[in-house]
């Protein structure tokens, strides 16, 4: 038998989708004009949630969605009228609904009267209309528990209407169901049959007299006929105790003929299904396999003699086709996991509203680029950081209405949430037109907490990003809203955990923009392969600004800053990768290959490598589990020849140096190489 449990995740996924769709629909109700489409859509969303909740027995969710549905029904039927206040109530109710769904998902019980107020609001809306009876009843064709213990004999007279067959009801089925209740004998009355010439083979002309001995009640028997009786005459007479029940309805035609069962023939055709639901695990497995396939393919390519490929046009063509197919397959599978960020974005206006209401601010939320698609696994991890950033933006950024008026700003603050794909990554920005970051206060606090040196000289940008330090979220008045015990350091950690970066830009009095930069997918990366010492390293292509060749004398030493190169007049810090990683002493070569990388804060670093090996698409292997968190290393990949290349995190390049106690180990790679397996 099917276990309902396996459908829980489908249900919650559906709830998420419905709730995400609900918010914009309800918001639309504020406008003028015909709202029936929006109301219908909202009603269906709630209705679906209620239906599913019923299957799983989530009692509070059922009751609340029922109240919600009734309110919408009242609005839909015109029994109640729409106004701004009611729309607001519905929006708040949809937030409560989302909480109830979340509680059901996590299997936790919300406080007893959690939804009480929202339910009252809903009841007020639907008040004009009487509640529809929604108590579950037993199925129409089903039997209920048997009534009496002593069997009784009933006489049933069944005179169906001529069109019974047109409702897909076969008398034989009814009789079969009856016979399950007890002992049945049936006698057909063919008196009503018309002459053959007048006979409609699709009509029913016969009536029956049935005798049933059963312990079931009259109600059980009537249930079996429930859908057939309305247009047919049904009499049930109890022979034993003269308990009699008669039900009269319009009698069918009385033209005699033989009943014909014209069941449509099954024509075997292929199924037409426009979409299917697949376990994410299976897709992940595919992603892994395709990653391995890409590697296997490059192994094949590396082992083939390039000259052989060049001189064999057939082989050359087949190989390029293979590469194209692999790439297509990869893109295809990735797109299965991609989802528009809408599902996360849609929740944010209500988050903002909640906060704004609690601390008496006026805020409107603008959503841009909701259709931007990101890997589903990333989307799921995005919600909490976004909520926190938005809380911060309103709690710390947006000023009170009167203060804003004084400053010549619109009284209603603006929080803009945007998503866009830029190059190899997705960029999500939360910007507000609030007061911006108080750099003096942040700096003071950082020095007080000894997070930075007292004489540190920092750029504005660097000061802004200090708030990612633990314990530095500068709530001047610690409010319940933006405080919440977690700071921006947690946001940063969460975003980093999904392979992203977060940074802040702010202008005092004008506003703050928090930018989250995310990878398109967690699994595949375009990178530039370089050699440092004997080892290969991979620099994500999204970080690479340009490659250049310099001679040694073009590197200048600046006191306190280290090596600096000049790129078109701009001074850029230079890092000798191999010595930075402790793989060898500083390079003494005269001609240097440099990969200029751009860090998350927009700064440039010239990375001096021993050789640029070319660009390559690779499958990221996380080493965090097995090897723990390592500064400057974002992961690893296995190259075509089976060797490992580490993936550099250019943002932490300098961190490797300042923290590393790794001694130079030039001998290591050399020694191990002779024993390659």
């Amino acid at each position, binding site marked *: 038998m099917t276990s309902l449990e396996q459908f829980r995740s489908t249900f919650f996924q559906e709830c998420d989708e419905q709730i995400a769709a609900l918010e914009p629909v309800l918001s639309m109700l504020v406008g003028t004009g015909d709202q029936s489409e929006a109301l219908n859509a909202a009603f269906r969303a709630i209705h679906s949630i209620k239906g599913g909740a019923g299957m799983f027995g989530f009692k509070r969710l059922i009751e609340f969605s029922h109240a919600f549905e009734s309110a919408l029904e009242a609005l839909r039927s015109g029994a109640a009228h729409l106004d701004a206040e009611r729309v607001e109530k519905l929006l708040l109710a949809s937030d409560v609904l989302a909480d109830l769904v979340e509680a059901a998902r996590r299997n936790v019980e919300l406080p007893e009267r959690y939804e009480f107020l929202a339910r009252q609001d809903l009841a007020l809306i639907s008040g004009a209309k009487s509640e529809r009876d929604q108590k579950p009843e037993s199925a129409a064709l089903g039997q209920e528990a048997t009534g009496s213990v002593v069997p009784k004999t009933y006489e049933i007279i069944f005179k169906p209407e001529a069109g019974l067959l047109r409702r897909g009801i076969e008398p034989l089925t009814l009789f079969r169901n009856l016979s399950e209740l007890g002992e049945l004998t049936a006698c057909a009355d063919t008196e009503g049959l018309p002459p053959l010439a007048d006979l409609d083979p699709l009509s029913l002309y016969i009536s029956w007299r049935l005798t049933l001995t059963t312990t079931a009640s009259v109600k059980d028997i009537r249930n079996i006929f429930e859908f057939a009786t309305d247009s047919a005459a049904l009499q049930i007479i109890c022979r034993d105790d003269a308990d009699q029940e008669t039900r009269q309805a319009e009698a069918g035609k009385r033209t005699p003929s033989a009943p014909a069962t014209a069941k449509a023939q099954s024509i075997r055709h292929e199924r037409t299904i426009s979409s299917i639901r697949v376990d994410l695990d299976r897709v992940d497995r595919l992603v892994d396999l395709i990653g391995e396939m890409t590697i296997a393919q490059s192994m094949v390519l590396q082992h083939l003699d390039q000259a052989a490929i060049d001189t064999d046009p057939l082989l050359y063509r087949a190989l390029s086709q293979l590469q194209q197919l692999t790439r297509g397959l990869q893109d295809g599978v990735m797109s299965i996991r991609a989802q528009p960020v809408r599902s996360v974005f849609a929740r944010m206006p209500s988050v903002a509203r909640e906060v704004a209401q609690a601390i008496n601010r006026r805020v409107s939320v603008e959503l841009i680029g909701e259709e931007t698609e990101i890997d589903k696994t990333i989307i799921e991890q995005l919600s909490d950081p976004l909520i926190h950033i938005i809380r911060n933006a309103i709690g710390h950024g947006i000023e009170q209405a009167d203060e804003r008026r004084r400053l010549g700003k619109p009284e209603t603050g603006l929080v803009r949430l945007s998503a866009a794909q830029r190059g190899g990554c997705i960029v999500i920005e939360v910007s507000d037109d609030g007061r911006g970051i108080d750099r003096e206060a942040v700096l003071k606090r950082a020095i007080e907490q000894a997070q930075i040196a007292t004489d540190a000289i920092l750029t504005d940008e660097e000061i802004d990003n200090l708030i990612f330090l633990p314990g530095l979220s500068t709530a001047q008045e610690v409010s319940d809203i933006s405080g919440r015990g977690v700071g921006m350091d947690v946001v940063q950690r969460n975003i980093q955990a999904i392979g992203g970066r977060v940074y802040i830009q702010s202008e005092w009095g004008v506003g703050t923009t928090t930018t989250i930069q995310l990878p398109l997918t967690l699994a595949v990366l375009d990178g530039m392969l370089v050699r440092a010492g004997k080892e290969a390293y991979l620099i994500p292509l999204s970080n690479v600004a340009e490659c250049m060749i310099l001679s040694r004398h073009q590197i200048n030493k600046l006191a306190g800053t280290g090596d600096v190169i000049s790129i078109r007049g701009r001074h850029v810090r230079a890092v000798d990768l191999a010595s930075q990683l*402790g793989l060898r002493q500083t390079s003494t070569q005269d001609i240097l290959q440099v990969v200029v990388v751009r860090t998350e804060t927009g700064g440039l670093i010239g990375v001096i490598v021993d050789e640029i090996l070319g660009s390559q698409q690779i499958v990221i292997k996380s080493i965090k589990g097995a090897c723990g968190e390592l500064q*400057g290393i974002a992961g690893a990949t296995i190259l075509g020849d089976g060797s490992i290349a580490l993936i550099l995190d250019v943002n932490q390049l300098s961190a490797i140096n300042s923290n590393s*106690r790794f001694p130079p180990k030039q001998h*290591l790679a050399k020694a191990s190489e002779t024993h390659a397996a």
Partner: protein
Amino acid sequence: MTQAIQSSREASREDRSAGEHRQFVVFSLGGQHYCIDIMSVREIRVVQTITALPGAAEYVRGIINLRGTIVPVFDLRKRFGLGETTIAENQALVIVAVGGHLAALLVDEVLDILSSASDVIAAVPASDSSRRSPFFEGLVSQGDMMLIIIDLDRIVEAGIGHDESGALGAAISGTM
């Protein structure tokens, strides 16, 4: 050898249910003999190309590609404070599963598989300072030789990043 370990593990699992015997993989490291509970050992390999892991603790020699899985290599000599291993041809990697991950232990030579009744296993005597270490679980005798049983969880638990290693490194030098 790996084959032998597979079958011994099977046997050991059965023994274990009877609660009597433990089996160990015996290896040498700088003349001293050590052993690891066979239940943790997945396979034994000749030493292969090790990729350096910058920023890792010094006793992490690097990482290897084990059929597509990236596995860190622990230099046990370094871990025990016996100096650094110079890689030579006959050295071996003992692949173990610990804490839900695979790890490779760099050892001089794998010698034997030893079966021992659990009551023969002794605690490291408090007076025997040369053998006291947070990484040693106990002693087991093989003929007239005493073998040190290595506590794998301890070796790997501190992690690989340099941050934690400092604290543990201090702990080791304190006890040795």
